[in-house]
């Protein structure tokens, strides 16, 4: 590629400011999918309830369908019977999408090191933020969510599409 020639991805790359606004809009309106598996789901509900109020971060609209959600909080143990379902749900979510593995079980199988449990949901789907705890406090979840917001804010189109642009030109 020529040195000074603008590459294809720079052509369609919108300026940084716009990117920032895009990232901001994504980070402040993260709608999680209502999807709970086990104990952590109760703490997730508690995080959405009055005391902790997930809505303060613009993430209060829990959507029941993955098609309209941006974030999947894997709250609980993932078993072999459930894994295909989670995979399907993840595939149904439109880009950009994020995953938080909440609690020990989703992160690494937790205490359930047994025949029917998957040792960490990152074996099935890519995970953005891991939150340990059994279950994590709602504040813990909020902290993890803020770290996710950080990640969204610092993400750039260039990074996201780097591979593909390098590949095709």
């Amino acid at each position, binding site marked *: 590629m020529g040195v000074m020639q603008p590459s294809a991805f720079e052509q369609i790359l919108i300026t940084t400011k716009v990117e920032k606004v895009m990232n901001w809009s994504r980070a402040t309106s993260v709608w999680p999918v209502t999807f709970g598996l086990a104990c952590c789901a109760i703490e997730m509900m508690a995080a959405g309830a*009055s*005391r*902790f*109020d997930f809505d*303060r971060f613009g993430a209060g609209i829990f959507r029941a369908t993955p098609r309209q959600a941006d974030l999947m909080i894997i709250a609980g143990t993932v078993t072999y019977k459930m894994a295909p379902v989670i995979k399907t749900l993840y595939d149904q979510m439109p880009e950009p999408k994020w995953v938080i593995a909440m609690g*020990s079980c989703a*992160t*690494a*199988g*937790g*205490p359930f*090191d047994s025949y029917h449990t998957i040792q*960490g949901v*990152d074996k099935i789907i890519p995970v*953005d*933020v*891991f*939150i*340990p*705890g*059994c279950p*994590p*406090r709602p*504040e*813990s979840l*909020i*902290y*993890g969510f*803020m*770290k996710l917001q950080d*990640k969204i804010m610092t993400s750039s189109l260039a990074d996201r599409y780097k591979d593909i642009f390098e590949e095709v030109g």
Partner: protein
Amino acid sequence: MNKFLRTLIPSDIAKGMAITGKHFCKVFFTANRRKVPFHIVSEYPEVVAKVQPRYRGRLTLLKDEQGEIKCVCCLACEKICPTQVITIEKGKKEGRKMPYPVRYDFEMERCIFCEFCVESCGFDSIILNHQFELATYNREDFSLGMEGLSQNMFEPSPVGKFSVADD
């Protein structure tokens, strides 16, 4: 006739609306006040989260007055741990009679924070501190190593103060 009237006039719904309306007014008119707000939101990121004294956060290796790790590798915690997340490698250190842990692995991503290890420890050398802000981007970041584990951050930290795993 009475029943018909009751069906016609939605007094039950009005009762419910009164309750919710009352709460709305209370919160709406006090939300901007510092004193006695009627919402019960714990404004967590700005206000330090209230944690009860017995709260079980992440595992910490305690140090003695000389700044040395107190653990003497009795392996009680390793044995009692229901999820087998603790692995200790025994070793020696100069100038110390008791064994010294060469490696103290604490697999935080599997830990269930049950405090059995602390209970079993006869030397009071470990403790579960009050830290709950433990989220990371990678699973590997959870292994803090001995130094990370022995940083005695007892108080719950406001956002940003923490942590080893942050970088």
